[in-house]
Each structure stands twice: as C-alpha cells, then as structure tokens.
C-alpha cells in the first residue's frame, strides 16, 4: 500500500502525539501554541465499531454521527512531521481514541487542579493501552497551586510517570512538555529493540 513518489523524493515520516484530558482543560490551546499551522479540525464518522456504544438497530442508515478532533503540525526537518491531536473529551468516543492511539508515540494528559478527576479516564486509558504518557498540569491563573508530588499522589501515578507544570497558552511551555513526553517515550521503548 505504501508507494514512494516517482520523482524519488522521500516523504517525511508522520508521527502522532496525543493531547488528552477533560473538557476545557486546554487541549486545543496547547495544540495551537506549539503547532506551525493554525489548529485544524477533522471529523471521524461513527462506523460499525460503535456497536455497544450507540444502538443503531432499525436505523442502520444512520451512520453520520461524527466526532471532531483538533490537531496541529510540527515539521521536524525533512524527515519527520509531528501531528498533535487533541483527543475528544467525551468518554463515549473511546473508539476514536483507539484509532488515534494506534501508532502514537505518546500522550500528554493535561490536568486542571480544580477538576483533577476529569483526567482519570485519560490516565486509565493510556495505562491500560500501554501508551507512554506524561501528565502536564495546566496552571490556570485562578486554580489552587499544588506541589507536583501532591498531584502525583492524587492521580495515583506510578513513580516513573513524569508530572510537570505548564502553561498551555505559551509556546515554550508546550514545547517543554513535548520534549518531556518524547524523552519519556524514548526511555519506555522495549530494550530488546535497542
């Protein structure tokens, strides 16, 4: 299925990173602050994989339920291009998560200390799936400030999961978060393949 361009020019290899977390936690803001393009929105159409989520019996023609995701892009030289996807906030769209998470290098779980529980489903999902992830606490101006250890404890995270503070609106902050994620994912890759 893969075919190279006939002029011999090599296409960059696309790499997927996910930005997850609860509704309104700043996923799209972070995508936008680090992306080289204005964040775009794409829609996935609900397919038969939705069985068990939506009962479509009797309305089989109703296949137009869509879920929207915002994403951005960062070109890494000529060889790689990073795509950052904000995962849909609603848990019922897990099937899009599966599609998104497949082949993803890693995920950032954004947390808001005012609603810490909102990020539990994301943490749970990536833990179960074995996707490398880190937690970034988006520092909203009016949110209570906690020590990172307290957040780690509250999320019941393993000692090896990095937790850091960030400001999703700032490009350099988002950049630091992505660097931390890639470093973490690098450390997590199976040693047998090194």
């Amino acid at each position, binding site marked *: 299925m893969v075919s190279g361009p006939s002029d011999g020019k090599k296409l960059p290899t696309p790499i997927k990173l996910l930005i997850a977390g609860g509704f309104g936690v700043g996923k799209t803001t972070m995508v936008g602050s680090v992306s080289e393009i204005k964040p775009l929105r794409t*829609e996935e159409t609900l397919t038969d994989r939705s069985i068990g989520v939506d009962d479509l019996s009797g309305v089989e023609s109703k296949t137009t339920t869509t879920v929207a995701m915002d994403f951005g892009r960062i070109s890494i030289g000529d060889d790689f291009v990073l795509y950052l*996807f904000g995962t849909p906030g609603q848990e019922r769209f897990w099937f899009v998560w599966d599609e998104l998470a497949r*082949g993803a*290098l890693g995920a950032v779980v954004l947390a808001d200390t005012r609603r810490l529980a909102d990020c539990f489903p994301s943490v749970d999902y990536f833990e179960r799936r074995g996707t490398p992830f880190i937690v970034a606490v988006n520092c909203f101006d009016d949110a209570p400030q906690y020590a990172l250890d307290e957040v780690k404890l509250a999320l019941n995270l393993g000692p090896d999961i990095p937790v850091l503070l960030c400001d999703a609106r700032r490009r350099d902050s988002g950049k630091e978060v992505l660097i931390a994620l890639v470093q973490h994912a690098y450390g997590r*890759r199976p040693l047998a393949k090194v």
Partner: protein
Amino acid sequence: MNSDDSLYDEQVVRPYVMTRGRTEARAKLDLITLAVTVRPATGVEIGLDPEHLAIARLCRRPLSVAEIAAHLDLPAGTVRVLLGDLLHGGFIALQEPQPEVDVLDERMYRAVLDGLRAL
C-alpha cells in the same frame, strides 16, 4: 441541487463511494498517513469527481488524511475512500506512519528531540 453546496453534500454521502469493496479495503489509512500528488489530474480523467481533483490539487505538497479532511471539510472516512481511488489511478503516493512496533528507532527519537529543542 443546483448550487455548489448541495452538489457537494450529495457527494459526501453518495452510498456507492462509501461501500465499494475495493475502497473499503483501502479505508484503513491512518489519520496521519501522508499523501502527495505524483501525477497531476487534469479533470478529464474518467471516474474522478470534483473532490478527487480537489485532493489532487491540495496534495501538491504532502498532507495528512486529517489535513485534507479539514481543508475540504469532508469526514476523514470519505477522504480515505477518495484517496484510495487516487492511489489506484496512480495520481498520488502515500507515506504511512511507522507501525507501532517500529516506533523504537533511536534515530527518530534523537531527530524529534533535536527538532523540538530547536523550535
């Protein structure tokens, strides 16, 4: 039906586009699979719809399935089907992401980290 908009909508949901077995098989393209036009479509090719031509025009530079979908305001699933047609016709080339098991390449991590630090 006479305005461009209604024609457009009509084609998005045209059932045969979505159900042809040949294109179903190609619908496994990832959201980040890149497409680039390798043979320009002039518009006189049999079997190419305006959406095909729009994709061929867009992909003069490599774009992901997600980007094509966003730019053309089409669902990603529809874009996958149309890309399958274009691939079949030899108009585009695809670059798929590395399979998950291969996301282990040390060179890739180095390049990505260096690239991010240089932002």
